[in-house]
């Protein structure tokens, strides 16, 4: 059974007929060609499919595309990244916080929410926050460094 949905994806209005059972990440990848969000475990454990829906991160493999009708979806491919996402992307590059990059899209989305909602987070809290996003090659040290650097820069800018 198909469902008609209207939503905004990375700032672009999208209107599609989707299978009611289709997951959001499959919709993004297969129907819209946005392959930046990845499918790892397909049951909400690895976090590779993390995307932002109405300023809240969700697991793309646990949310149906039909549920995002009327929502604003943002992925790491957005051509107009928020200041937090832009800073995180630069910091990930600066600290080499990725190797294969498979987890990076989801990791960035999780970190965006951290930066926006917990600007005073310390390293332990950063680790706790990204504990739902698995990275199997870089390790988390460089990722925590990158996020901590962004938080530090934000604090300095606020002074």
């Amino acid at each position: 059974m198909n469902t008609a949905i209207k939503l905004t994806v990375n700032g672009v209005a999208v209107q599609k007929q989707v299978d009611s059972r289709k997951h959001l990440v499959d919709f993004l990848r297969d129907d819209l060609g946005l392959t930046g969000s990845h499918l790892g475990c397909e049951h909400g454990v690895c976090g590779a499919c993390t995307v932002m829906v109405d300023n809240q991160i969700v697991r793309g493999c646990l949310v149906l595309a039909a549920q995002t009708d009327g929502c604003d979806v943002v992925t790491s491919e957005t051509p107009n990244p928020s200041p937090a996402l832009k800073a995180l992307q630069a910091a990930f590059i600066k600290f080499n916080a990725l190797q294969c990059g498979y987890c990076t899209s989801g990791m960035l989305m999780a970190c965006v929410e951290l930066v926006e909602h917990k600007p005073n987070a310390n390293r332990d809290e950063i680790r706790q926050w990204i504990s739902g996003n698995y990275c199997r090659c870089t390790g988390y040290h460089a990722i925590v460094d990158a996020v901590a650097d962004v938080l530090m820069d934000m604090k300095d800018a606020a002074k």
Partner: protein
Amino acid sequence: MNSPRDLPSQAKVAPILADQIHIGAAIPRQGIQRLVQGRGQYIDDLQMPRLVHVVYWRSPVAHAKIIGIEIEAARVIGPKDIVFFNQIIIEMKILEMDSKTELDKKKRDEHSARHEKKVSENGFEERNSGRHHSLAKKVSLRPYL
């Protein structure tokens, strides 16, 4: 017992490189910008023409040569055409086309096989390098939003 703390004379030894421009310095990664923007291309991002199902199989043992693959069981299950590339097996189920002659189908299959081979040689052997761009040009059918 041999730690520098226990051997004070070693503390005076100069580092191997006085100018540590290489040791401990991170080298900028090629293509990292692409990866943080979600534009990396991975095996499961590939959408090849008329591809229904694909299986990649590599040797479970390092440096081992695959000298044969038993596919009879797979043929029974369904795929009509199974294409092998080096150590990669690609199962392709060619969709049935209505009102097409057998000759046309043969031509399409030949074209498809040539295309797949090109992808295999140029794409799968490259990982995280700039050549992904050429791969994207050849096989990507990503609809642009």
